[in-house]
């Protein structure tokens, strides 16, 4: 990756109405780092990713990151599975920055769609509608869409929630591949054993940032 994948947060605060979801979080995700974001329910983990992605407005503070170099995986529940869309169309949307809202996706985007589907084990599923495939397969398709987005910063909100073990291993391999390619990956996770085993950095949230750094140093703050 040539683009700079650094994400710097300066005192970011997010409010939903009068409720403070995230308060004065500061720090930097180094370019090429692989960070797990952990914390109790309602700790502001999803809000943090949405704030970095620019999907929720900031009440205060600044997110400093290459805005056009960012790919965001929302929670699965945010996707309307009743929508009439094929797996192939869903993945191809990842090329949005190339073809934009108006032009037709070219043959290159189509070829990359097939290749990305192959990587996440969805080769035979391209023509299915997203309502017909399993939850695990939908998550694989959304990962394939992220592959197409080819972003320097990848934000994953609970990528393994409600997903079978085999899919988790495929998706985890992809995350490691992104890390090896030098991309910055930030993932909200619940499985602390997994975090300990595979994620070099960890951020512990409880509306404020409780601990942030190397996993073996930061994670005990969560368990305590």
């Amino acid at each position, binding site marked *: 990756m040539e683009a700079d994948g650094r994400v710097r947060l300066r005192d970011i605060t997010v409010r939903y*109405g009068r409720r403070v979801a995230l308060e004065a979080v500061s720090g930097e995700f180094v370019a090429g780092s692989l960070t797990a974001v952990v914390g109790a329910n309602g700790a502001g983990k999803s809000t943090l990713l949405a704030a970095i992605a620019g999907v929720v407005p900031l009440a205060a503070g600044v997110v400093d990151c290459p*805005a*056009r170099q960012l790919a*965001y995986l929302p929670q699965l529940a945010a996707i309307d599975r009743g*929508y*009439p869309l094929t797996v192939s169309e869903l993945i191809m949307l990842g090329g949005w920055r190339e073809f934009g809202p*108006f032009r037709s996706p070219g043959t290159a985007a189509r070829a990359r769609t097939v290749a990305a589907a192959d990587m996440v084990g969805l080769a035979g599923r391209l023509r299915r*509608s997203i309502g017909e495939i399993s939850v695990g397969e939908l998550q694989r398709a959304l990962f394939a869409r992220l592959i197409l987005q080819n972003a320097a910063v990848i934000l994953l909100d609970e990528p393994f929630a409600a997903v079978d073990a085999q899919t988790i291993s495929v998706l985890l391999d992809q995350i490691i591949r992104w890390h090896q390619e030098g991309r910055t990956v930030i993932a909200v996770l619940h499985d602390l054993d997994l975090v300990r085993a595979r994620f070099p950095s960890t951020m512990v949230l409880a509306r404020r940032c409780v601990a942030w750094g190397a996993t073996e140093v930061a994670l005990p703050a969560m368990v305590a």
Partner: protein
Amino acid sequence: MAAHALIVEPFETLAFMRAALVACLALALSNGAVGTLLVLRRMSLDGDVLGHAVMPGAAVGFLYAGPSPTWLSVGGLASGLAVAALAGIITSGRARHDAGLVGFYLVALSLGVILVAWRGSNVDVMHVLFGTVLAIDQQALLQIAGVSSLIVLGIAALYRPLAVGAFDPAFLRAVGARAPYGAVFLVLVVLDLVANFQAFGTLLAVGPMLLPAAAARCWGLGVAASMALATGFGLTASVGGLLVSYHGNLPSGPAIVLAAGLLFAISAVITGSLRRLAPMIARDV
């Protein structure tokens, strides 16, 4: 030649039937596209509410200029957009507020009826409530055709962001497509409702928009194909409804909406039983 007398003759001999037919065909084009997106966005209730939000403005237009199609439309458009903006502000960032939406609908409807009844007759009230599809003059026809052309062009131009925003708005914002497509879509809905209002009145305006789209949605097609099928259903319901109302001497707006409702029921029953039968057939083979 019985079929000719039944189907072609009413349109051949009567200018008002022809005008009604052309208006309904123009509306079917924009309704197919707008209605499909409305159903896919699960915004049917919002569409219904906005249909009634047109009423107070149309009533003010009526007070100002009598039953002139232009002033009814201008007033209706103004109050429809005002309510859309107001509802957007009130419900933004919160869970859906059904009671608030229905509240808008009741207040707007009552206010409109009172305003029209204040200066007009009972016939005028009936006209704004149920429309006057058989009394569409050339000016109204041009307006309807113009507005629905505008809507079809608008949706064609913004098709991809509108379609993607309907199922994954966060993705749209994350890839930097930050134009307010949701608001643009609401404007298109209000425009289409104003066009329908002339023919179907405030109570039924949302019917020709939603019912063909809901019927098309049953068949599980892609977005563009659903729009085309919804347009086809809209055309069928218009021709069928107009003929039934002519031969049966029935009110034509409600007849067209009933025909669309019938298509919805047939679609739901057929696709529902196909879905139930498919696994059984697969097992037998």
